[in-house]
């Protein structure tokens, strides 16, 4: 079972490119449809929590699937399985291509890639604000500008956001305004 878990996540870690979200359909097919380790609702519920938890989302998914299968060892084995390929591949790139920017062709390629990478990050910034209330949009824009200009760690803004959220929930409950 541990070996099967390792192998499943090894495959997921090796063949999932781009963002962790590309993993969702693959994981679902593997652990819900093929292996039947989860029923679909249970999988989606835990999955929502994995999305909200800190840390790379692929690892969080490995942890909850692994834990369900084999407890602590299961988590460990699944995390190991999912991170081994990315680790080896990037390590090889770091070792053998560290002088890659001196190659004129590679440098030209990266000159083309860099603006595309920035576009790739700018789009989700804008699409995530769709459906936000005006003060959430204002908050998002101010965080972006302040973090960019001052270099203050975004951690402080995350903590402040959490604090406001918790106090809003507690004071709302006191006034009997608990809404779904």
């Amino acid at each position, binding site marked *: 079972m541990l070996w099967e878990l390792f192998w499943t996540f090894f495959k997921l870690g090796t063949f999932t490119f781009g963002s962790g979200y590309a993993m969702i359909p693959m994981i679902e097919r593997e652990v819900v449809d093929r292996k039947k380790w989860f029923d679909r609702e249970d999988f989606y519920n835990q999955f929502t929590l994995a999305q909200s938890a800190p840390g790379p989302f692929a690892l969080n998914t490995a942890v909850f699937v692994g834990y369900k299968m084999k407890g602590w060892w299961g988590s460990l084995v699944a995390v190991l399985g999912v991170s081994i390929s990315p680790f080896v591949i990037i390590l090889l790139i770091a070792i053998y291509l560290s002088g890659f920017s001196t190659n004129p062709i590679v440098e030209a*390629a990266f000159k083309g890639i860099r603006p595309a990478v920035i576009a790739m990050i700018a789009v989700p910034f804008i699409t995530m604000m769709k459906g936000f209330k005006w003060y959430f949009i204002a908050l998002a824009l101010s965080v972006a500008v302040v973090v960019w200009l001052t270099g203050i760690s975004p951690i402080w803004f995350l903590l402040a956001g959490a604090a406001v959220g918790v106090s809003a929930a507690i004071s709302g409950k006191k006034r009997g305004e608990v809404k779904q």
Partner: protein
Amino acid sequence: MIYLQLFLSYLKIGFFGFGGGYAMISLIQNEIVVKHNWLSAMELTDIVAISQMTPGPIAINCATYVGYTVTGNVWGSLLATFAVCLPPLTIMTAITIFYRRLHNNHIVKSALTWMRPVMTGMIGAAALMFLNRETFVDWVSIVIFAVSFVAIWKKFNPILLLVLAAMAGILIY
């Protein structure tokens, strides 16, 4: 000493890595570029590009790369990667155990609701910090940015887009 700094930096990135890979880039920039100067903003842009074209989460890819370049050996790489894996192994395990209590908990929900605009802002900060004279060298950069923006907006495959951008770069520069 450098090992301890590396470990702590990536532990922080992991523990506060809310909101997915793009929001995490902002934390990585803050630790790696602003605080420690281990990489330039441009080098980090390149790592994000490499990370998109290779399997695995950005945070892991970046930890592996920076761990190696900062220390010059595999152990640094392993240590930084391990540091990123620790929060999932601890926090996510706890969440899995208490899942029934956390699921639909209104305090947790409210905290996450207020953290979401911050995560969005972090993605914006990541984009702004990457935008400089090293990444935008001339008007061609602006054209590539505009075309990529529309392409991603229209849900074009990001890996294919980066490959095309690389080919454009080779042809033009």
